[in-house]
């Protein structure tokens, strides 16, 4: 029985709860047990049902009826330790709850636990967590992707029915791709960032990691909306409609050559699955054509100036003065700052603080930050132009399937390339979803692993995007259950 419960989509579980076929508490407890027992290091903290009465609204109107949800540890949860995967926040219990989490609670969802992540969301493999790496449920010698690796591994590994994560340059889509699940990065401004620990404020966005597109729509619907605590939030006009489309008739799909055929480093297996999916789109009645995003290939370079620049300021508050651990320094202020931060931050975070500080320095600002901003504008223009000819643009989500633990840790640039196909959409602020499209052999050989297919749409066009993804998902018929996960 319990194994079957773990296979339900949330939409199906909700239907059963509503019909009286499944008790909400049983549903929660089953997942609480699975989350407690998981061996992927996907969770940093697991809640029990008794821990979770406070913000729960299980009234008849509560759309989410007590279902559990895993939350990336980047979201502040009042009184519950929140670390953003960093040692510098060890023991930090926020005095407030993030808007996205509060909205879920208001809708009746219950916090299942806080998931592991790359420190401050900086990473593409989850190996940058201050609390140990997360393992990929498809192959425990491989990474789950990052930075929302804990959320992705928990959902794919049947330790959570669904989860929220954050995406700055690919941090939802890439781990979703590597773990064989659905991941959506909404339009910048769709979901409030209040209470989401900032990495790069102009790019960070909260989004769902789920086992199918319908659950992603449900979760987006529960979290999106204007929030007066976040001046940059606007919500999605007209809300989110649940997907129902079965064909792609009348839809035009553009394939940016810069992010697919022409891009270096895309694995043969990934290309093959990508090509097969394009054929499937045509079979469903969609039109597929090549398109150009002339500046997209510069996205990664611009991103690695802008995101670290913002991060260098966002991470300045971790100074040991008001919260978190404080290093002893014999009363010397500067030494206290230096030691606290030297001990609290990991190597990748330090690298990005250095990069960002440099890029903003007097005399370098124009050459780095100023130029990167202009590239960002060009990329946004590229997408706008492309959406005059196409309804959606499609690319592989990640150039490769899940790579081995340790494989890229010594080479930051190789690691950064993991986000080559996802970063341009982040810079343009537009929504993009990753769907599991099939399995492919990794370049070094071995058992087949999930391949993600990315669909990007125009700003605030989430409902249409989810609808198209839903039609394609049905046609693909991907089994999200990793081998070896008991059933």
């Amino acid at each position, binding site marked *: 029985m319990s194994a079957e419960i773990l296979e339900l989509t949330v939409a199906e579980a909700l239907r059963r709860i509503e019909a009286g076929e499944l008790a909400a508490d049983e549903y929660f407890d089953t997942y609480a047990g699975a989350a407690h027992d998981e061996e992927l290091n996907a969770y940093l903290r697991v809640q029990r049902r008794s821990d979770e009465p406070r913000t729960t609204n299980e009234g008849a109107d509560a759309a989410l009826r007590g279902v559990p949800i895993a939350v990336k540890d980047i979201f502040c949860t009042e009184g519950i330790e929140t670390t953003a995967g960093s040692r510098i926040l060890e023991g930090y219990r926020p005095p407030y709850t993030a808007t996205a989490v509060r909205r879920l609670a208001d809708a009746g969802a219950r916090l299942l636990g806080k998931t592991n992540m790359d420190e401050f969301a900086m990473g593409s493999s989850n190996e940058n967590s201050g609390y140990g790496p997360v393992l990929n449920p498809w192959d425990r010698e491989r990474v789950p992707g990052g930075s929302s690796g804990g959320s992705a591994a928990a959902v794919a590994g049947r330790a959570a029915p669904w989860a929220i994560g954050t995406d700055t340059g690919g941090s939802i889509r890439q781990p979703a791709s590597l773990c064989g699940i659905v991941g959506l990065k909404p339009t910048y401004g769709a979901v409030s960032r209040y*209470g989401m*620990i900032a990495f790069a404020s102009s790019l960070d966005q909260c989004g769902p990691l789920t086992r199918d597109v319908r659950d992603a729509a449900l979760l987006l619907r529960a979290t999106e909306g204007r929030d007066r605590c976040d*001046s*940059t939030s606007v919500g999605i006009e007209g809300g989110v409609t649940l997907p129902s489309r079965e064909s792609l008739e009348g839809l035009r799909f553009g394939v940016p050559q810069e992010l697919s055929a022409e891009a270096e480093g895309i694995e043969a297996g990934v290309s093959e699955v990508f090509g097969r999916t394009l054929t499937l789109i045509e079979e469903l009645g969609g039109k597929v054509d090549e398109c150009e995003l002339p500046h997209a290939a510069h996205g990664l370079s611009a991103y690695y100036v802008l995101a670290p620049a*913002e991060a260098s300021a966002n991470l300045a508050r971790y100074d040991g003065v008001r919260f978190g651990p404080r290093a002893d320094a014999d009363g010397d202020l500067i030494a206290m700052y230096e030691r606290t931060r030297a001990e609290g931050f990991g190597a990748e975070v330090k690298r990005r603080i250095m990069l960002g500080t440099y890029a903003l*320095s*007097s005399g370098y600002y124009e050459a780095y930050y100023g130029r990167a901003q202009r590239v960002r504008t060009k990329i946004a223009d590229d997408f706008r132009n492309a959406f005059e000819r196409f309804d959606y643009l499609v690319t592989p989500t990640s150039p490769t399937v899940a790579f081995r633990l340790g494989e890229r840790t010594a080479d930051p640039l190789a690691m950064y390339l993991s986000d080559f196909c996802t970063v341009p959409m982040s810079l343009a602020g537009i929504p993009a979803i990753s769907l599991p499209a099939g399995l492919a052999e990794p370049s070094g050989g071995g058992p087949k692993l999930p391949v993600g297919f990315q669909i990007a749409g125009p700003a605030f066009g989430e409902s249409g995007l989810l609808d198209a993804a839903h039609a394609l998902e049905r046609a693909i018929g991907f089994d999200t259950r990793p081998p070896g996960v008991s059933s």
Partner: protein
Amino acid sequence: MPEGYEGVIGLEIHVQLSTRTKMFCGCELSFGDEPNTHTCPICLGHPGTLPVTNEQAVRYALQIALALGCEPAARSIFHRKNYFYPDLPKGYQISQYDIPLASEGRLGDVRIHRVHLEEDAAKLIHLGESGRIHGSAASLVDFNRGGTPLVEIVTEPDLRSPTEAREWAQLMRTTVKQLGVSDVNMEEGSLRCDANVSVRRAGAEQLGTKTELKNMNSFRFLERGITAELERQASLLESGEQVEQETFHFDPRTGALTPLRSKEYAHDYRYFPEPDLVPLAPTEEMLRTARQALPELPAERRERYQAELGLPEVTARQLAFDAELGAYFERALNASRQGTVAEGPAPEPRTIANWVTGELVGRLREAGDGEVDPVSSKVSPEALAALAGMVESNQVTTGAARQVLATLVAEGGGPAEIVEREGLAQMSDAGELEAMVDRAIEAEPVAAEKVKAGNPKAIGPIVGAVMRETKGRADGGQVTRLIQQKLGLD
């Protein structure tokens, strides 16, 4: 300063706005409350928090900008100013940089470079003797002040002397005070004034190297600090040395200027646009409302006082450019116009003005320790207007009125009662005065003879005798004329 040198001074003024809540969060503003009682996750810089701009602060700042004749930008943006200090919870201050709220204004003879909005830092309290962070036994942070809305006003270097700088700063204070958007109290820190000071050869075009003076928490200290720094720079130049660009901390206890350690100010602030906030674009409604809310500003008020009230320029300026004095005068003027203060016709505004700027200020200055605040004195504007009216309508002599004022300063109350009580009403009974004059002529026969013989100055002792007898209630001119009549001189 030695001959042949000229000071060049620009001011950087910070005004704490008296909004209900802080610049970017909902905490109430406070002054003097128990430390760390007006804080929240946002103004403490907790992870994940975001700023939201206080609309009232924008409205107040627009009023200041318009009062200074600045052009508000259609769209200005906030920047992050990055540096580490314990009074700065986020590790950056949200401020404005290349596109400020407003720019290019003028107040009096000084051009305004820019006006921008930012948040205040928290307050550090250093334990130990130094009173500074270095060498203190411990430092405590009070975050109540952190996040208070601040308007920064930067002038062009148009001031030439310490006195000019002080007077202009006072005019600036009056202007903001009249807007009602700040307490503008220098001692409490709701008005702070830093100075950029340089010295050059008189007549030179190029500016000398400037230094920055901080922490001058009164107008007198501002003047003293600038004076000391001009002297220092001029004597350096005089002896062939160079002025180093540095920042000085003014010590109000000693008047000394100590250079700040370079670590305390030599920053690369790494400004970049604040991604958590949308651009500040005042709506038409906001601009219209701000314009409509503008009260009469000092320059306009001075003009009105001269043109409509016929006040001399010096008096008009004094009343218009000093917030407290001007407010006091306005109240006295209103009271006299409404006829609530005394019987008879309302006194001329000029008479009231003279009594405010001359008699009252002088008397308060004698009584107090130099600081003159008529509003908090015991003399109500209504009482002063009444007194001026009594003088003008010859109910009391000027001399008697001065006595009344002395009593008012000491005890307060109404002038009519004091006149009554102390018997100071001007003598109006001609017969009684004539009798006194006769007696005085009799008592001073030598003087009377001298006057008759053509020495008008000899009349003094006779007048004096009459005035003594009337205790100042008689008008000196009238008494003199009467004596001359009696001695057959007219």
